[in-house]
């Protein structure tokens, strides 16, 4: 299964980016093989508006079914939910620890946005 982690860099030891819509990178990690790739999100990082919706579309298009991030606002959440992506928040530290935390069940899945728009 593919999972997406919002990150500040392109490696597994990069720090998690706590913002979703304006995260710098998306790391798409395959749990079965441990392979991963980094997607650049500069375009949405600099977007005038609608970053959350566009970023959500990007995650859905990547095939990831799980998103691990710091926080998720209402429009991004609505889009991810409609695209069948489960959202786990409160991730901290490096991408690697965030993946481990998720696999251990230490992160919580949200059923509603945890922050307001333009957080």
């Amino acid at each position, binding site marked *: 299964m593919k999972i997406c982690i919002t990150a500040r860099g392109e490696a597994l030891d990069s720090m998690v980016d706590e913002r979703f819509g304006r995260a710098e990178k998306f790391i798409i990690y395959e749990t079965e093989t441990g392979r991963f790739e980094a997607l650049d999100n500069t375009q949405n990082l600099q*977007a*005038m*508006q*609608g*970053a959350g*919706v*566009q970023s*959500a*579309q990007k995650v*859905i298009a990547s095939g990831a079914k799980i998103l691990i991030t710091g926080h998720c606002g209402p*429009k991004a959440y*609505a*889009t991810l939910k*409609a*695209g*069948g992506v489960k959202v786990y928040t409160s991730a901290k530290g490096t991408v690697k620890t965030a993946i481990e935390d998720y696999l251990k069940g230490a992160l919580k899945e949200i059923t509603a946005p945890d922050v307001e728009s333009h957080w």
Partner: protein
Amino acid sequence: MKIAVASGKGGTGKTLIATSLALSLEKAVLVDCDVEEPNAHLLVCPQWQLTRHVELPFPKVDLNKCSFCGECQRVCRFGAIAVLADQVLTFPELCHSCGACSLVCPSRAISEEKRKIGEIRFGIKNGLELIEGRLQVGEPMATPIIRELKRCSAKRDSIIIFDAPPGTSCPVIHTLRASDYALLVTEPTPFGLNDLVLAVGVTRELAIPAGLIINKAGIGDKKVYTYAQEQNLPILLEIPEERKIAEAYSRGKSLAEAFPEYKKIFLDLFEKINLQVKENVCKAVVSSER
């Protein structure tokens, strides 16, 4: 004659000047374009006559006709539509009402619905008409309301005074555009000067003649005066920093109402503006004949 009162910095006294000027003239229209927090009515206290809604169109997708091709999402520059495998999400508050989505839809599945984003109120106080725009709390776009305010006031043949919002972003530019004169209210402080420079830049870009009013004169420093001289900006009026003015203002009284001597001062101010506008028109005619 259309005069826009702007400042750059907030709290310099735009509304005090706009209301005092409007109340000093026998007949005028005052348009409160600070639609995020309109407050001219507090100093004018008009009798409200009429309220009109301001509505914007946004897309409504008929899922029975939609083929989920994603064309609407691709054409939308504002991220207001998300097309997924079996549903389409629209975000009205991101929509700029350009209509591109319904134009490109090959299945003709998109129609437009309207939603209210604010309102415009019309009030009367003696010879003064106050037109006020008010954006609904939570709505991000002020400019559609300002556009509507300008459309409503365009038909009036008296002197029109626009009270601009603070800053130098889109709502201010919409307010200033097509005005005959920009009356820039500043205060003689580094903050006042910093934002005044930006506001003057906007008036130059829009090719609108501008003059200064220095409010709270006596505080701060002399740098605004030096700047005005360097830039050849006339200082039309100085209003001293005085406790009695602040007290009257806090009771909702403009200068013209609280201190009768100010009525003449504002009529003189209007004459100076009138003269400058006419000179500007003459200059424009001369340069076009060359």
